[in-house]
């Protein structure tokens, strides 16, 4: 299966490890992964901040870039939801019927990572090894827009050595909310502090999510507080194996030459 990886601009720029982990994981599971260099951003920040008129070129770019793949995988519930819910709206608004058709053709092929693993590849045990206590934070867009349900936790439960701890108030927003974090910094920080307190109370070593943007907010608060919990993207846990628990080989080159 030829999989186009839509990594997202945040991951590309700030979290390349998540991208490398996603590639390692998908290749381990037999996918032919490509990262088309024409990809940029899904337009979520613009859309959600009230600049929806500016996203049309990004929507067009996405549809063109990913038209040729069997499946498009993104390690972000939030950007996945932007594409699934709002690219059709943006296309409809543009009045460009060809764009609307292109978007309608690509959107059904777009999957968030855990959705792709469970629904398309049909696996919940990806052969991972991660001997730590992990709390899973279902980010809002993963939970309520992408409706990932128990897919991420089903994957985590099958990770050898991993102890999944219950996160109190798991379904509550962490307070990131894109530009909310800077437009309403006090409420955002209050929400983040509560989320971190809950992760600490659960005894987690690692706070895991399917969205690095939320983890950037929580991680930023955690390092500021020098807390004991660290944040990690779901892909990086699922890519870890007994042979390579630290993911030292992910950054290697392709075609089995990583060792």
């Amino acid at each position, binding site marked *: 299966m030829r999989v186009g990886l839509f*990594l997202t*601009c945040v*991951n*590309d*720029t*700030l*979290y*390349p*490890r998540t*991208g490398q982990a996603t590639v390692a994981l998908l290749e381990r599971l037999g996918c032919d992964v490509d*990262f088309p*260099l*024409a*990809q*940029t951003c899904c*337009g979520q920040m*613009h*859309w*959600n*901040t*009230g*600049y929806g*008129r500016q*996203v049309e*070129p*990004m929507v067009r*770019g996405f549809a063109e870039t990913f038209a040729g793949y069997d499946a498009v995988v993104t390690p972000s519930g939030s950007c996945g939801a932007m594409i699934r819910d709002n690219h059709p709206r943006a296309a409809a608004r543009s009045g460009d019927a060809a764009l609307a058709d292109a978007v309608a053709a690509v959107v059904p092929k777009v999957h968030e990572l855990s959705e792709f693993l469970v629904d398309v590849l049909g696996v919940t045990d990806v052969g991972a090894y991660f001997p730590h206590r992990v709390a899973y934070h279902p980010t*809002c*867009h993963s939970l*309520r*827009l992408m409706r990932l349900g128990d897919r991420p936790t089903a994957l985590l439960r099958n990770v050898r050595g991993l102890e999944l701890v219950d996160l109190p108030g798991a*379904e509550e*927003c962490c*307070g990131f*909310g*894109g*530009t*909310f*974090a*800077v*437009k*309403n*910094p*006090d*409420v*955002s*920080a209050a*929400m*983040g502090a509560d989320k971190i307190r809950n992760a600490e109370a659960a005894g987690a070593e690692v706070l895991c999510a399917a969205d690095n943007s939320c983890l*950037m*907010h929580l*991680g*930023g*608060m955690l390092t*500021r507080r020098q807390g004991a919990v660290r944040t990690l993207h779901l892909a990086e846990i699922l890519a870890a194996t007994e042979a390579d628990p630290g993911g030292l080989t992910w*950054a*290697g*080159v*392709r075609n089995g*030459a990583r060792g």
Partner: protein
Amino acid sequence: MSAVPLGMPSFPDAAREATRNPTLRRNLRHATHTIRDRRAAAVAELDDWAELRAAGAAIKDRTLRHLDTYLEQAEAAVVAAGGHVHWAADAAEANRIVTDLVRATGETEVVKVKSMATQEIGLNEALAEAGITAYETDLAELIVQLGDDRPSHILVPAIHRNRTEIRDIFRDAMGEWGIPAPDGMSDDPRELAEAARLHLREKFLRAKVGVSGANFLVAETGTLVVVESEGNGRMCLTLPETLISVVGIEKVVPTWRDLEVFLQLLPRSSTAERMNPYTSTWTGVTDGDGPRAFHLVLLDNGRTSILADEVGRQTLRCIRCSACLNVCPVYERAGGHAYGSVYPGPIGAILTPQLRGTGSAVDASLPYASTLCGACYDVCPVAIDIPEVLVHLREKVTAQRGHVIERSALRAAAWAMRDPKRYTALQRAAAAGTRALHPRRLPLPGWGKAWTDTRDLPAVPKESFRTWWQRRDTSGGTK
């Protein structure tokens, strides 16, 4: 809608104060979490909740599409049943109509059932200017009135007060308004409810004029419906000689049968009960039972302009259950007062800017008072896509004057994102700049400072993913 409160700061500024008030935080957290879990249980009892919700939304949408027809039908039915119908284009007109109706009775006091519409138009203040005292009879409204406070929740206007604060308000203020609180009253909610009972009973028994809103107005029969818990509604609707109901034009539902949907959706969403303790329905006037004169005031006050907006229109489906407030993580931390309106929480964040416009600081900030987490949409019994409307309103705000820096920055980003080469160049520049400086805190005002006041910036990696990918891709399978 009544004006923005004088000196009302923007939402972020008002919310900052609230987040630093530990008592308020504790009160709100306790109350919202209590009701949240109970609502979920009450809803889970019905395995056809999704179908009820869809029907509720569909009934409201169809009604709104034919609002003129249904209002005329409702008017004719109310008149045929012996009631009088008045139309108020705005708050001032509604207040004038009610004031004149009360004056015509010769009375200088009215008892009131909790009503969002009369709060929205500032009726109590208008009546006071005309020398008429309005007594709020809902327990929470009484707490707000006696405490000279502002409501902070749709269902429980005094949610920001805990039992001890309520005890103090009753002890200090009840005597000024009528029968004082019993000596030695504790802060046990049962004793507080008992004090309210004694204080208000005397007012109910002598009242000649009652003022209410309504939860529903049935067009085909002219029937009004008030859903409540305490019995103060029944008192106000039944004992006075004259009843005046101020009802937003969006409250109309076409048929008596339609209530079968809303009387299932509303109580479970609102107070998390299978059914609220009391629901009153009445049609015009009835010989020998209840008020001898009934006046219905149909209120527009900005609703028709919401109707004109095809995305915003769904806001008018709202049945004021307040489930969205109770699940909202932002409301829980910011409190209701930060919204600067009688409609707080997620529904307020979309309703207020549509009723009042986005001219003031607080109104322009309300569409941003949300992380778009979607919890409100999930619990809304009439499926109002609040995040969708918030984003829609953000577009209206950004189209206004101002926002120069933000708009330019985002336009530049959009320009870069349009083209992978520009995007890559921007990415490299940003990475180089941040890595060179290694800032953990940014001192300059604006978004950077807002981020780093409480959070470290992420460490920027040496190499972006795409740079690595290209390296890996061109290395042709060897290291």
